[in-house]
């Protein structure tokens, strides 16, 4: 399909048939059709920008993250295999770009996975038992604050652990799909996922147990 000149307009694009549009746009981008890329931007930019703003809470930073996400997506689009929806794939790339920007702007340090795992004594009992997590309120402001803590925690994970969380817990691929996407064995995915979740739990613990406000 050849895209018309009107696709260059900077207005939202909402296709009548998203499945057909996705296939046509992907084919267009892969053969270097500028108009196809423009349509992709006009179709998905709003959702990607909204996600980046939710994570970064700053318009300028969110714009930079969205731009970075499109650059990453363009470079990786040859590897997009259609296993998930294009919008879901773009969402993951955007979350990742925004989290990396968050890590930089908030100067968050990457944690050591070993340091964030539960500690046990010689008899197998936990040495670091703290208070139980409080019930989470449905209040919107608190939910936003809680989401901010989660974003910061994910941003502190080492790349290989963050990737697994992104694919398994956010994109919700299964273990085998994640293993294939990352080029590692299924057993390694399971181990990394468990350790990443334990690390996130540990990072969120002071806030969720009400011991600290961060």
């Amino acid at each position, binding site marked *: 399909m050849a895209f018309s000149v009107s696709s260059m307009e900077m207005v939202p694009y909402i296709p009548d048939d998203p499945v057909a549009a996705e296939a046509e746009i992907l084919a267009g981008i892969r053969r270097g059709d500028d108009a196809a890329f423009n349509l992709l931007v*006009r179709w998905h*930019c709003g*959702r990607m920008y909204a996600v980046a703003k939710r994570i970064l809470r700053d318009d300028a930073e969110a714009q930079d993250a969205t731009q970075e996400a499109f650059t990453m997506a363009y470079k990786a689009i040859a590897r997009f295999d259609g296993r998930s929806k294009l919008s879901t794939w773009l969402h993951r790339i955007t979350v990742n770009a925004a989290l990396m920007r968050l890590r930089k702007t908030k100067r968050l340090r990457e944690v050591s996975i070993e340091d964030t795992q539960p500690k046990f004594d010689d008899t197998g009992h936990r040495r670091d038992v703290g208070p139980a997590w409080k019930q989470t309120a449905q209040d919107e402001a608190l939910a936003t604050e809680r989401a901010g803590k989660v974003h910061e925690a994910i941003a502190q994970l080492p790349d290989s652990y963050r990737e697994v969380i992104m694919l398994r817990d956010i994109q919700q691929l299964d273990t085998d799909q994640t293993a294939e996407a990352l080029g590692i064995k299924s057993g390694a995915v399971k181990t990394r996922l468990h350790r990443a979740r334990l690390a996130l739990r540990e990072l969120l613990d002071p806030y969720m147990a009400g011991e600290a406000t961060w």
Partner: protein
Amino acid sequence: MITCKECIEFLDDYIAGDVSPAALENFEKHLALCPPCRDFIESYRKTIEETRCACSEPDEQVGCDDVPPTLISAIIESRKLDREPDA
């Protein structure tokens, strides 16, 4: 009976429902007697739930209406600049 360490190592499979009946029985016997592990499991579940919630995809309906027009043009222009030369 399994220890807290074994219980936590086993947690991922337990939550995924990927355990044998015998292992499940051992696990649940431990939980019945260990409030800290029960709390830990709840916090582990909550971690997964909060992660999904914090990073969920927005509605399909979200369009470009709130996007600064300069952002769309900046993305398109930067792509042209970044484009690798044909091999």
